[in-house]
């Protein structure tokens, strides 16, 4: 596939090994009631006993209902004390057993309708991204994709890698790939994206999928944020002339396919995630298989969740810090441990820099291939300065935007000009903030402006609607009075 310029993969220490550990199964699982921007309403009462896979909460979305299935059997406590978040459901586990729900069926005998229903109930549906809605696809069958793109690549340091999941759940993934065509239109195509096509894992995938003509394998560069659905979508549009603008594309990653496979063949809902625990602060970087609801502290070795380190949920770029109480969610696949800065370095800017890598090839680490950014901490690593228009953000931007120009517009509050200059296209990958030598908070600035823009649009639309209503009421009134006069 053709990718534009931009994107960057920093060399960060603490890459998780291919080994997959099983996290301990705790007695208490916490399921947050907020996921993918949706707030779920509990479907159970306090101290009610639920079975494995039974819906804990529902949310209405896109013409249907999606569920949060219980990751284990147990007694429920509803915790809504937290005013900030939507609250959570705490499950006191009585049994960790996993057993199939419902009857398995073959792909040939499954209908799209049934499959959508099953995926929504199993909590898998929100893992699919649709190019039409920019989020999870509609549940009522109103959209049928011409394409489904299954992404094996995770460039953001460090998210669970497709190859690891393939190695662990190869069968489930192939099964999932067999079910996916049910959701497609006729003669629809499934694209698989891999990094290298001649890698042993890639060759095995090709062998497995060799019989299926509708599966196309594509190679993509490992450059963050290549896994972002909008980047993939743009690249597909640019490289494949058969893929039209009005065509619908669904994108999902390997873990979602694996879950689909599990759900459709064995009837097992989404109940565990493979999580990459890595980063310069991780003492044992590895992959961990964890039941949903397991506290994130259970994934970490002792000493990682302390004052001197910051634990991010998600990768380096998009991860957000979590506290000790946070638990594994239905869509988590990464925990990034970043040390906090300690002490100040003497004449740091003048050192050759074998222990730091940068977007610019201006550190000595460039000379060796093995060097990694061993000094990566939560520090800004520099003073905040005004923009000097160095253009690094433009080089790094994967969407071909001009972040420096947007910054200038937003600096003087010209939000309309920023909108015309492509602000809505920003995907919030954070690379511009990452590379900025002046340490400007570009990502924050852009996402705030996007929110403001959306609010303004909504307000304008609401005002217009109100105006229209008023006018109509006035007309009715007038008609009415005229009628009355007659």
């Amino acid at each position, binding site marked *: 596939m053709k990718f534009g310029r931009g994107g960057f993969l920093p060399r960060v220490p603490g890459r998780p090994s291919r080994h997959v550990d099983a996290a301990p199964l705790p007695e208490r699982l916490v399921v947050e009631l907020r996921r993918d921007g949706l707030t779920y309403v509990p479907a159970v009462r306090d101290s009610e006993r639920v079975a494995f896979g039974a819906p804990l909460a529902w949310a209405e979305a896109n013409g249907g209902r999606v569920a949060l299935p219980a990751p284990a059997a147990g007694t429920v406590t509803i915790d809504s004390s937290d005013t900030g978040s939507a609250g959570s459901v705490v499950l006191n586990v009585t049994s960790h057993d996993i057993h199939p729900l419902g009857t398995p069926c073959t792909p040939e005998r499954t209908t799209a309708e049934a499959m959508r229903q099953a995926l929504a109930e199993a909590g898998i549906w929100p893992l699919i991204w649709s190019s039409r809605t920019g989020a999870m696809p509609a549940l009522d069958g109103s959209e049928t994709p011409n394409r489904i793109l299954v992404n094996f690549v995770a460039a953001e340091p460090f998210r669970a890698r497709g190859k690891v999941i393939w190695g662990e759940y190869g069968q489930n993934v192939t099964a999932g790939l067999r079910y996916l065509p049910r959701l497609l239109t006729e003669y629809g195509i499934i694209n698989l994206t891999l990094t290298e096509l001649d890698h042993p894992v890639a060759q095995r995938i090709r062998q497995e999928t060799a019989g299926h003509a509708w599966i196309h394998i594509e190679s993509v560069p490992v450059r963050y944020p290549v896994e972002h659905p909008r980047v993939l979508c743009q690249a597909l549009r640019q490289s494949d002339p058969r893929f039209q603008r009005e065509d619908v594309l669904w994108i999902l990653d390997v873990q979602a396919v694996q879950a689909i496979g599990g759900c459709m063949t064995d009837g097992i809902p989404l109940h565990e995630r493979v999580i990459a625990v890595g980063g310069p602060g991780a003492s044992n970087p590895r992959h961990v298989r964890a039941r949903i609801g397991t506290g994130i502290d259970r994934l970490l070795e002792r000493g990682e969740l302390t004052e001197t380190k910051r634990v*991010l949920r998600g990768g*380096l*770029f*998009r*991860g*957000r*810090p979590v506290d000790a109480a946070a638990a594994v969610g239905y869509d988590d696949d990464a925990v990034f441990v970043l040390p*906090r*800065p300690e002490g*100040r370095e*003497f*004449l*740091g*800017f*003048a050192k050759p*820099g074998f222990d*730091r*890598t*940068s*977007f*610019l*090839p*201006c*550190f000595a680490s460039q000379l060796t291939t093995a060097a990694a950014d061993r*000094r*990566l*901490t*939560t*520090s*800004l*690593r*520099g*003073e*905040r*300065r*005004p923009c*000097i*228009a*160095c*253009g*690094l953000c*433009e080089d790094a931007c994967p969407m071909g935007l*001009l972040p*420096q*120009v947007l910054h*200038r517009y937003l600096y003087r509050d010209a939000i309309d000009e920023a909108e*015309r*200059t*492509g602000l*809505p*296209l920003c995907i919030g990958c954070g690379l511009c*903030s*990452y*590379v*900025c*030598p*002046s*340490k400007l908070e570009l*990502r*924050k600035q852009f996402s705030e402006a996007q929110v403001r823009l959306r609010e303004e649009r909504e307000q304008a639309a609401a005002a217009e609607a109100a105006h229209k209503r008023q006018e109509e009421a006035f007309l009715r009134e007038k008609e009415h009075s005229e009628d009355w006069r007659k």
Partner: protein
Amino acid sequence: MNPIGNLLKRFKPLFDQGGGLRPLWPIFQAADNFFFSHVEEAEHAPFGRDPIDIKRYMSLVIVALLPSFLAALYFFGPRVLLMLAVSYAAGGLVEVLFALVRKEEINEGFLITGFIFPLILPPGIPLWMVAVGVVFGVLVGKEVFGGTGRNLFNPALVGRCFLLLGYPAALSKSWVVPQSGDWLLWWRALPDVPADAVTGATPLMLAKQGTHTPLWDLFIGHTAGCIGETSILMTLIGALFLITMRVASLRTILGSVLSFLLLGTILHWIAPTRVNPPSFNLLSGGFLFGAVFMATDPVTGPVTGAARWFYGVIIGGATLLIRSFSGYVEGVMFAILLGNICAPLLDEIVIRIHVRRYAREI
């Protein structure tokens, strides 16, 4: 902690809130941040940041300038050091004063301005003129616009322009033939050039009168000219460094050099008497130095990458035209200032094109 750390620690209370030297806080802070890296935690995603910062970015330019500086030292003697000291002292004073008045931090941008400024002056220029020039450059070229990042014009070039227009006679008398041999003589003559140093015309002046300096001398830098710009070899080393480090915009450099050569070839073919041969033109005077170190100043150039091509073309073309068809033998300075003026316009054009593209995608 090393001794400098201890020293800074001991004096810190004086500059802290309530200390006796509180108004001078920016100076202390600049020193503190110079020696010890600034530590501030990221409060927003991404929580890890790239190690590049403005200090590193700017110091790379200084490193790239070092070869030219050393060549200047070799050709024009220890007076070059004195000029550098004067430039830093006088310009730094203005910078610090403004930081104090505005209660802002002292910016790193001046490090480059102060270093580059003496390199674009003739070797025999009186020291007070160095000071006046750099003060004017920093004041009118930068501080008037609000400081680093907001200036329209390259401060060093503004300072030089001021000197050229203000003291044309003094400047045209200050060209000295490099006296690499007798160091002792140059030391003794400080702070002036030795009395018997031969004043000579620059290669471009000579070319106007029909004498062309051999290309090899031009390449090595054994000619009269501004102290930093004579040695093309050293400029090329600096350029190579900047380009591999990706600190200087390759687009600007290529745009200017290619347009300069292309237009030069065409015009030389049309009017060989007026226009010097392109090889001679490229190697003589300060064109390369300007294109590599001054045109690539990101603040005064265009903001967008695509506009940098055209920016380079304007600089290359204007230099050639000024050199060939005007009363000035050298045109880089005016060409770059002209480019600075055009930069926002070029940006606007590029942004318009982008807007059209985005309109299709949104």
